[in-house]
Each structure stands twice: as structure tokens, then as C-alpha cells.
């Protein structure tokens, strides 16, 4: 079985799992873990979108 993912869906999966691990390992209580996980996820996805637009501008 071979998995075919787009760039964006691969980046979303990466962001999801990495954010879960960061949230759990970098904070002490459940509430802070969720907040930090969401913060990391938004930075990952935001970074992908910003980098995507930057590459689009460079290509023009």
C-alpha cells in the first residue's frame, strides 16, 4: 500500500502529530498542554501558508 498525499495534507498531518507531542511534553497541566498544542499547530500551519505565498511571489 502506498500513500499519496498532497503537500498541504502532509503538512497538516505533520503539524497535528508534532503539536500533540510538543503540547504534552513542554507543559505541566492539561489546560496548558492543550493551549500550547494549539499554539504550535497554528504556527506550523501559519508557517506553511506564509512560506507557500512567499514561494508563489518568488516564482512570479
Amino acid at each position, binding site marked *: 500500500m502506498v500513500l499519496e498525499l498532497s503537500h498541504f495534507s502532509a503538512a497538516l498531518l505533520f503539524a497535528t502529530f508534532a503539536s500533540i507531542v510538543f503540547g504534552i*511534553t513542554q507543559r505541566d497541566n492539561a489546560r496548558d498542554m492543550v493551549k500550547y498544542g494549539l499554539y504550535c499547530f497554528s504556527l506550523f500551519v501559519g508557517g506553511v501558508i506564509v512560506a507557500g505565498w512567499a514561494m508563489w511571489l518568488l516564482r512570479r
Partner: protein
Amino acid sequence: MAPSGKNLGTTMDRQNRAAAAQRPQVTPANTTMAVIAPALGWLIPGAGHLVQKRWWRGLLLMISIVTMFVLGLLMQGKVYGFNTGDLLDMLGFVGDVGAGGLYIVTRALDGGQGAIHRAVADYGTKFIIVAGLLNIIAAVDAHHIALGKKA
């Protein structure tokens, strides 16, 4: 009025005692767990937390790391060998080996050969490396929990 030398000494003693009271107590039981938990966590992702009864954290870590590793393999990512003579391959190996048991089983089954002609396979390679690195972070976290540095 400035504190005399004697008063300054007793104030510092009091502060030192207060700081020592806040520090977690190191007992033989938690030093043993501080070795077992990260080792088990490295071998089986999330097990370092599960063995310390952090059920949800352990389960979420296990699901995240194992899924990431398996997704990497399904994308035909490459699993690096011990020494190919290439520095970047050696760094890849360091990341991969962090996945512990997943790495050992994959190598034993001759998996993770990689397909360099596919762009998605390169993402797969990165998924596998990052799964290993995240597992190292999780194992260190299990060590900190065992020492009482973290709840």
C-alpha cells in the same frame, strides 16, 4: 541598618532550607524509574508515561509517534542504516533510531527502502526521522516525570 554577618548567614540558611524543601525528594524508587521510564519510552513510544500511570499522555504520545512513523513508511520513506559513509545519512540514522522498537522492527523486516523518484517519499523520510526525534523528547519527558520535576 545593614544586616550583620551573623544575621546574613541565618537568612541565607533559611532561604536554602526553603529551596531544599521545594526540591523533589530523590529516593531509590524514583531513580530506578528515572532509568526504566525513558528506556521503555524509547523502545515503545509512550510506554514511559504509561508505566508511570500517565494513561492519556502515554496513549496520545503512542498514537502520534507510531502513526507518524507508519505514515512515513506508507509514503515510501527511507529508513537509514547505521553507517553509509554519508554525513547526512548518519544524521538521518540518529533521528530514525530515536523511534526505538519501531526502527528495530522495520529494519528487521527490511522495510523503509525508500523511493527517491517520488516527492512524497521524501516527505515520508522526514516523517520517520521526526517521529524518532519526537520519541526522544517523549522519553526525556518520562525521565523528568520520574524524577518529580514534572507532574
